[in-house]
């Protein structure tokens, strides 16, 4: 029995202790809106700026996994949509925004042409409640019907590729709120745009933002390095289209020309400015997705 206690104590200690090495763990995500992250990773900008650090890139399935990894101190920086970030902050996570990453044309797509008023009780696929797609849809619903939750009982939650498949195949789902490249691929397959994200929001907003833990924020050297690496990657995409395509090609299973159109001519904008955060917070607070109201400068480091 005594031995058992000793073993358990040791385990507890191991769990409690943290590694004190200089190490940065960053979540890598898939999607055109994250292109600067892929450039940053391939070009090794961060590794270059921080030679003393060990930099590790991890792939996590979705924003929930990112949040959980951040709670467990297993992640220092990540890129995700504004609403999931705000929900994370609201459930007690101490992290802040350090950069915007992109604005992108997300849209509600439908098999038949329709407007919000004529959707009726058609089924709408989107990633999950609390995702940016869901919040945008709720914003549009609030503006049109005065009730943000009017569509909440006809949602089907599924990942983007699954959603695209069921929409195009016409199986039980009539609409799909999705982001690039699925928006483009659905449009090519003859689906109609019902409403765009910017119309839902009522202006421009940042789609993907970069967040860091407080620890990283306090480590000025690393913090500045990651901020400038993101900017460097954006400039690279802007100024060297051909090379950028070379870097990005291996990540996406599409031909070079299509990728070029998606990145440069489809409305995706890579910029560090963060737009629209207070509108999101106000809306989410008003509709009880979050418990507290936050000011913009509380959220941006």
């Amino acid at each position, binding site marked *: 029995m005594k031995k058992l206690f000793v073993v*358990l104590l040791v385990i*507890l200690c191991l*769990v*409690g202790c943290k590694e004190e090495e200089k190490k940065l763990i960053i979540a890598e995500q898939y999607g055109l809106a994250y292109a600067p992250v892929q450039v940053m990773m391939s070009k090794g900008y961060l590794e270059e700026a921080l030679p003393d650090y060990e930099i590790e890139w991890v792939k996590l399935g979705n924003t*929930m996994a990112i*949040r959980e990894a951040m*709670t*467990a101190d297993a992640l220092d920086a990540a890129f995700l949509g504004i609403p999931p970030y705000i*929900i*994370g902050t*609201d*459930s*007690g*996570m101490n992290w802040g925004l350090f950069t915007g990453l992109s604005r992108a044309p997300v849209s509600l797509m439908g098999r038949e042409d329709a407007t919000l008023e004529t959707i009726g009780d058609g*089924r709408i*696929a989107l990633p*999950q*409640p*609390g995702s940016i797609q869901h919040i945008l849809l709720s914003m549009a619903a609030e503006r049109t019907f005065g009730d943000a939750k009017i569509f*909440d*009982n*006809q*949602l*089907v*939650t*599924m*990942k983007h590729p*699954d959603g695209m*498949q*069921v929409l195009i*195949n016409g*199986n*039980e*789902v009539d609409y799909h709120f999705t982001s690039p490249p699925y928006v483009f691929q659905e449009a090519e397959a003859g689906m109609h745009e019902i409403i765009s994200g910017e119309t839902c929001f009522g202006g421009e907003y940042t789609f993907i933002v970069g967040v860091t833990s407080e620890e990283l924020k306090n480590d000025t050297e690393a913090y500045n390095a990651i901020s400038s690496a993101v900017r460097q990657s954006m400039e690279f995409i802007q100024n060297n289209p051909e090379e950028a395509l070379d870097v990005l090609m291996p990540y996406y299973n599409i031909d070079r020309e299509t990728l070029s159109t998606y990145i440069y001519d489809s409305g995706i904008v890579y910029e560090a400015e963060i737009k629209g955060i207070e509108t999101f917070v106000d809306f989410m607070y008003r509709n009880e*997705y979050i418990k507290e109201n936050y000011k913009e400068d509380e959220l941006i480091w």
Partner: protein
Amino acid sequence: MVKKHKILFVIFIILIWEAMAFTGKLPSSVNILMTLISDLPALGLAVFNSIAVIGKAIVISLMITAILIYLGRYEKINDCIEMVITVCHPIPGVALLPLIFMWIGPGPEAILVIVTHAVLWPLLVNIKTSFRQVHSEYKFLVKVFHVTKVKQITKVYIPGMMPGILSGLKIGWSRGWRGFISAEMIFSVIGESTGIGWYIFMYRIFGNMSGVFAGIIAVIIVSLIIEKVVFEQIEKRTIDKWIEKA
């Protein structure tokens, strides 16, 4: 009777849990209990919906099993069935999701298909094995004694196969839960009756770990009750009784 060392073990686990909760890696058990109690109606409904789907899947699986065992009397058909089992048994239902979406779309039926897939194969394997065992032991005896077909089934095969049927049902039941929860956490039709997988997922989305564990504990409690009340009772009234008689 619950034994003393089991209770001590549970208390021990809770103590470790609390120590971990203190470091912030786990929600405190008090919070979990509070969520569990305050959420009882929603949780009850979610459990009820889940059991309804798993129950349906078990009934369907039992019917398919009966048909397949009946057909399996012919050696060639049996070989084919064995092959299907070998191929299908290791595949997790969620891996088949894209196919299921393509064929029947994302609805309650899709979840039922995944749960049935989870339940069917372990159930079939267990029942089939016990059938073959009983068959090889008694096929000549029933011939020699001229036992009627009806009596063969009610007095020989069903009693003989009962242990296999029960263990198949037990495994099927737990696999059904797993399949159901993972399917619901991957996709869900909100507004239809959603089950415990959605309940857990919803709390995960909003970063409420107490809610997540409340859902998991509900699954544990329900499984324990079904195990203790349903399966043990069936065992007592069938196998134990038959052994006593013999």
